[in-house]
């Protein structure tokens, strides 16, 4: 009996030592959490796939070597914290934070506490970067997108009367909506119709569309992901209502959506930093590689993930980071570098960072003949 107990205790101890053991290494370990399973899995997998492409490209060049690991958080803050801790056990030196906003809010707190440098590809909520000196965003913050959209509509004289349909139980939609309304008021845009929908109640939009139509809105702003947006487009078409539809980056992906008649999206304008049909050399190469490996066109999440790895790699080069440095040493070095760092990627040029938020120009795209065309 005693011997058995002794052997069990010994086995447990040995496991603990193994797990916490330190191994010599020659690659810098980058870790990230994202929804690889569940309802938001499309975003997590896009980022993880694209980041892996970037890591492979960088390793092929021969300079600094990187190792990437993505852990599943199922778009849940609790699981994201578990995943982040698992990555720390693995020996993560640089973090890609989390893919989605709420999990990133929880893990960015750990970035701050544990002094691990973090850069999120796509968690756009302001709470992710607020009050943290070592967490950066590659995507626009939600407020940024809302005000940029209102400014874009006003500056280009797209419409005087505007309708907004938004999802009131979604962090992303609400974040964009709030600042859009603020900026719209300031710029004198008249919002004539303001209607909402929520989870489980997102298949019939006849009431919202009728309201916008009745009040004579010339433009309908849709701060939401592409699934509900595709239904709104189809139902507005059926109702014989043909305003300008205006979306933000969540609309990206609508053209490749299964079962959606892409002709309905003709004339839709959206603000997105990434255009998969761009003729830019870097973008085209990335899109080709992604299609070859994963059989689909990369969305904006993938592009952000790709850019994060490249930005981190270039910043590490500039900071003189080596694989044997601790996470905290790398953290301090990267904070210093990112103060003056500029980066050219596939989601924008001359990007700089200010208190964690990225400065880059949103690109206005209009859908013509089933493809994005730059508006400017």
């Amino acid at each position: 009996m005693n011997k058995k107990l002794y052997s069990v205790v010994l086995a447990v101890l040995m496991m603990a030592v193994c797990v916490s053991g330190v191994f010599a290494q020659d690659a810098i370990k980058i870790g990230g959490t994202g929804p690889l399973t569940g309802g938001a899995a499309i975003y997590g997998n896009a980022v993880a796939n694209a980041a892996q492409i970037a890591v492979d490209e960088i390793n092929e060049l021969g300079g600094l070597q990187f190792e990437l690991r993505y852990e599943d958080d199922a778009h849940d803050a609790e699981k994201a914290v578990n995943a982040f801790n698992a990555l720390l056990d693995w020996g993560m030196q640089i973090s890609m934070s989390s893919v989605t906003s709420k999990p990133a809010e929880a893990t960015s707190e750990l970035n701050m506490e544990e002094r691990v440098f973090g850069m999120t590809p796509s968690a756009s909520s302001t709470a992710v970067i607020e009050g943290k000196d070592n967490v950066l965003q590659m995507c626009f913050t939600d407020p940024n997108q809302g005000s940029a959209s209102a400014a874009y509509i006003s500056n280009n004289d797209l419409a005087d009367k505007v309708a907004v349909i938004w999802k009131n139980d979604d962090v992303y939609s609400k974040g964009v909506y709030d600042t859009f309304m603020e900026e719209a008021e300031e710029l004198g845009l008249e919002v004539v119709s303001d209607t909402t929908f929520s989870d489980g109640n997102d298949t019939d939009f006849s009431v919202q569309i009728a309201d916008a139509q009745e009040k004579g809105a010339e433009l309908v702003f849709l701060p939401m992901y592409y699934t509900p947006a595709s239904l709104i487009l189809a139902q507005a078409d059926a109702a014989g209502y043909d305003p300008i539809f205006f979306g933000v980056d969540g609309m990206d992906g609508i053209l490749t959506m299964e079962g959606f008649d892409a002709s309905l999206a003709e004339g839709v304008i959206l603000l997105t930093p990434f255009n998969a049909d761009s003729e830019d050399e870097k973008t085209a190469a990335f899109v080709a590689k992604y299609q070859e490996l994963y059989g689909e066109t990369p969305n904006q999440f993938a592009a952000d993930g790709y850019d994060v790895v490249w930005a981190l790699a270039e910043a590490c080069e500039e900071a003189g980071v080596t694989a044997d440095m601790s996470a905290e040493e790398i953290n301090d070095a990267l904070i210093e570098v990112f103060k003056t760092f500029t980066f050219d990627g596939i989601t924008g040029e001359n990007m700089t960072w200010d208190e964690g938020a990225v400065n880059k120009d949103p690109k206005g795209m209009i859908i013509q003949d089933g493809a994005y065309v730059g508006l400017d």
Partner: protein
Amino acid sequence: MKRKNTNKYVSFALVIAAYAIMMILTASGKITRSMQGMLVPICAYIVMAISLNLTVGILGELSLGHAGFMSMGAFTGTCAALMMTESVPDEGLRLGISMVIGAIFGGIAGFLIGIPVLRLKGDYLAIVTLAFGEIIKSIFNNLYVGFDKYGLNFQLLSEKGIKLEEGGRMLIQGAMGISKIKKISTFTAGFILIILTLFIVYHLVESRYGRAIMAIRDNRIAAESVGVDVTKYKMTAFVISAALAGAAGTLFAMNYSTITANKFDFNTSILILVLVVLGGLGNITGSIISATLLTILPEALRGFATYRMLVYAIVLIVVMLFTNASGTKMLISNIKAKLGGNKEEEEQ
């Protein structure tokens, strides 16, 4: 009577031993980050499982909305803690007061929902509690609460009507939930909450109340015929269960920097029910063990990468079959008999 007592001591001994081992491992730095991060959630889930076991196993009513009470405690407790940031600088004390407030609100929710629900039985009661959980989720998804020196500011659907004085902050922001929570939950607080929960539940079960509650479970008509006030005892068990869930919700929420209403949805209610069923209806020790194992399991399976949740489901099925097999049941009762026998020998 004798068997129940053994079970009780096993529960306490298990929790105290686990706490001592974890504290030693933490102090000597032998514990992995991932394990350390799971300690507080494990404590919260244990309390959730024990409290639901009170409703399902001991009172005998199937409740599918237990996460609703957790949500109630999480939001009210966290708001209370945020409001006390300056007035109560001591973190342990602030957490304690918040948990009490979470428990009170959980209990109130339990009482309110208990009035209509406890008139129902079986399947009907299960469906109504399910609806209740969804209602709580919807309310917190649309509730906006701000706080400044003049007090609280409530608004439904939009935060437009809330005007805060300087130094005020938004507490609950609808679907965004509560952000920027200062994490003050500790393993020790979780441990104390478990011990308190065990104390309350065992005390209840062994008292006159407990006997009446179990009599109602076993035969409602017979119990009523000898003068047991069914509504009163049912309500007591239900409210205590809800209050404990509220305290666990506060503990859970204060372990993360952010919390949303969608976290406490139907899935969470079912997860807690799984913990209870796996541990055995009415078996408190079983609830503790199953809550611990099922919280660690998905993390331990990270090595399976994409197949993780599939493996998790298979393990769950196997464990359910295994613990229910007659051979295992025999083995467990044999061990129990032996343990009981040993104790008696020692006592002599």
